[in-house]
C-alpha cells in the first residue's frame, strides 16, 4: 500500500519552517512532553490548528495523531477553527456574571450578527466567552485581543466594537 504523504501545500512554507525550528529544540524526554508548548506556538503562528497541521505536529513529535487531536480538543485555549482579526472575549467568570456579563455577550453577538466562537462574515471578529481573567475588580470585563476594558456597560459594547473595526480597516 502506498503511504499517504501529508499535503501541506495550504500552509505558508516560512511559517512551517518557523514551527519546525521551534520543535527542533526539544529532545529526549522533553520531546514527548513538549506537545502543549508546540501547539501554543503553532497556534501563535497560524492562528488556529487545522487537522493537517495537527497531523504534521504528530509526525514531528512521533505521537499518534489521535493523541494530538485529543489534546487539542481537551483544552479550550486551542482552536480548530480560524479566528477573526480581532478576538472579543467577554469574561464569564462569577464576578463578571453577577454584574451582567451574559447581557454583554448577547449584545456583542447581536451587533456582529455572529455566533459564539465563530468568525463573523467579514472576518473581523470572533466573539467568545472566557473564564475569569483575574481582573474581577473591573467587572464586567471585556477584552479585545490584549486590551482589557473594565466596567463595561451595554452601551459601551457598541463603541468598543466600532473602535476595533476601524482600527483594522485602516
Amino acid at each position, binding site marked *: 500500500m502506498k503511504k499517504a504523504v501529508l499535503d501541506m501545500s495550504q500552509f505558508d512554507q516560512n511559517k512551517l519552517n518557523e514551527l519546525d525550528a521551534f520543535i527542533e529544540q526539544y529532545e529526549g*524526554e522533553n520531546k*514527548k*512532553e*513538549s*506537545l*502543549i*508548548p508546540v*501547539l*501554543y506556538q503553532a497556534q501563535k503562528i497560524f492562528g488556529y490548528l487545522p487537522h493537517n497541521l495537527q497531523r504534521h505536529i504528530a509526525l514531528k513529535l512521533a505521537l499518534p495523531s489521535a*493523541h494530538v487531536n*485529543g*489534546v487539542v480538543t*481537551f*483544552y*479550550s*485555549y*486551542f482552536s480548530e477553527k480560524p479566528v477573526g482579526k480581532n478576538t472579543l472575549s467577554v469574561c*464569564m*467568570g*462569577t*464576578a463578571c*456574571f*453577577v*454584574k451582567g456579563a451574559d447581557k454583554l455577550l448577547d449584545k456583542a453577538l447581536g451587533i456582529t450578527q455572529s455566533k459564539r466562537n465563530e468568525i463573523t462574515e467579514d472576518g473581523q471578529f470572533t466573539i467568545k466567552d*472566557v*473564564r*475569569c*481573567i*483575574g*481582573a*474581577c*475588580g*473591573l*467587572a464586567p*470585563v471585556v477584552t479585545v485581543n*490584549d486590551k*482589557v*476594558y*473594565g466596567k463595561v456597560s451595554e452601551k459601551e459594547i457598541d463603541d468598543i466594537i466600532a473602535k476595533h473595526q476601524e482600527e483594522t480597516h485602516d
Partner: protein
Amino acid sequence: MIRSYDDLQNRRATLQTQKPKRLEVIVCAGTSCLSSDSDIILDMLQKDVLDRGLDIEVEVVKSGCFLFCGQGPMLKVMPDDVIYVQLTLKDVNRIIEEHIIKGNIVTDLLYERDDKKRAKNESDTPYYKKQRRIALRNLGIINPDSLDDYLEYNGYEAMARAITKMTPEDVIEVVKTSGLRGRGGGGFPTGLKWKFTRATKSDEKYVICNADEGDPGAFMDRSIMEGDPHSIIEAMIINGYAVGANNGLIYIRAEYEIAAKPLFKALIDAREAGLLGKEILGTDFSFDIEVKLGAGAFVCGEETALIHSMEGKRGEPTTKPPFPSEVGFRGKPSNVNNVETYANIPPILVHGADWFNKIGTKNSKGTKVFALAGNIENIGLVEVPMGTTFREIIYDIGGGIPNGKKFKAVQIGGPSGGVVTEKDLDMEIDYDSLQQAGSMMGSGGMIVMDEDTDIVEIAKFYLDFTQDESCGKCTPCRIGTKRLYEILEKLTNMEGTPHDLELLETLSENVKNASLCGLGQSAPNPVLSTLKHFRDEYEDYAYRRKRTAYVVDGQKCIGCTKCARVCPVDCIAGKPREVHVITESDCIACGACYDACPVDAIIKP
C-alpha cells in the same frame, strides 16, 4: 553573585543603609489598575520627573497590587504616606506640581470614605484596617521586577537559614508546627505533605507550584505572582530542600501568561544572583525551576490532572491513592502546593512556627486571602486572620452592598462551594466552619450577591461551568452535571415540576458520591446549598409561580412615556402624565423599561 549566607547578609545590609531619595512615588501595576491605564500614568510620571530634572530626588516605580482594586488606578507617595485613588491621566500633572514640588496633598484625589471624610493613607481607610498581611506582605511595597527590593525586605533570608543552618527535618518540623494548611482548596496540612514526600524514596523528586487558579472570581494567586514573584521562588527552594527535590515546576494557566512576566524575570534574576541553580549559597544543594503553561481547563487545577497536563497529555485526573507525593510528575514523588500556601512559607521560617500558630483559629492557623467581588462596595483582595467573620469582611472591610440594596448571600469556594446567608454572617470563617455550613474555603473567591440576584440562575451558572469543564473521564460527573444543568434550565424556563426538585437532590448526592475527582465530588454543592437556603425560590419556578414580567408601580409612575418608547415589543400602554401598564403576557423581561425609567417606578420580576 551571592555565594554564601554572609554574602547575602552583606548585600542586604548595603541595600538597607542606602539613603532613599526624598520622595518615592509607587504606582500600582496590579491587573485592575493596569487595565485602567496605570502603565501610562507610570510612564508619564517617569518622563515628567525626568524632564523637570526631579529625578535626583524623586523615584517613580511600580509595584504589585494595592489590594483595593475598585479604586484603581492608584499611587502612593512615600515617605509622606499618601495614597491617591481613581486617577486619570490629567491628574498626573497636578500630583507633580502640587505634591511633589510644593509638598501639598491633593485632597480631592484622596479616597472618600463613607462618612465623606478623605482618607490620607491605609490607616485612615476602613478597607485596610482589619487586614493582616502575611502572604501579601510585599504587595504594593516592593517593585516586583527588583530583586534588590525583595532582598531589602528580608527576601531569601528564610531560604538561606533553611539550607545553611537547618536540616530538612528541622524545616519540615517548623512548617508542621506552624499549622499551615493548603490554601488551594483542600486545606491539607502542608508540613505533613512535605513529610510524606520526603519519606518516599526516589532518585528524583519534584516540587510543583499550582498556579492554575481555576476558581472564576479569585485572583489572589495571580496578584502574588505579579506582585511578589520572588516569594514563590524562595518558598519552592525551601520546599525542594525539605523534601529532597532538585527540580521545581510552576504550572500557570494560559490566561495568565502575561501576568506571569514578573515571575519569568524573577527566575532569571534569582539565577544570575546565584540564589537559584547549582550549589546555592555555597552549599551542596542545587535547585532550579521551570514554568509550564496550561491551556485552559479548570480540571487541571486538580493535582493529578495538573501533572498529566505538564506531561503534555490531556489533563484528566486519576484516582488517589497513589498521591503525587508517591507517584507524581514523570512517575516520581512530587509535592504540589498552591501559590498562596508558598507565599506563607518564608515568613513562617523567619518568625517561627509559634508566631504563625498564634494567628487564627484552633484548627486553621494564619491568615487567608479572599477576593471580594460581586455586589459589594469595595472590590479587591482582603487578607485577614482565620476566624474573621463574614460580617466583618462584607461590611467593615467591604463597605456593604451598593445602591442601598439588601444583602442576600455570599458564595464562597467558587463552583465547588456554596452560599452563606444572613443567618451565618457572624460565623467565624475557617476550614471547618465553612464545611459545616455546607460550603468550603476553596481558593477564597467571595462573591457577594444582593437582593436582586436570582439564586436559581446562580446555581445554573455554576453548573454550566462544571458541566462544561468536566473532563469526561468518569460518567457520574460527565453526565450527572449535564443532567443537573438541564433540570435547572428546565426550571428557569418555567417548564419544570415540583418533582424536579427531588430529582435535583438525589442526583446531586449521587454525583457527589460517585465522581472520580474533586470536580465532580463538589460540583453539586452550589445546587444543594442554594436549595437548602432558598428552597422557596426553586419552588417559585417549580410551581411556575415565578413572575417573569416587569410591573409598573402606580404610586411612583409620572407618566413620562419613556418606558413605552423603549419597549421593543410594545407591551407598555398609557397616556402621557398617566400611569402606564405593562401587559404581562407580552413582556419579554428585557429590562429596557427598567433602565429607562427616571423615577424607579418599574419593579423587577
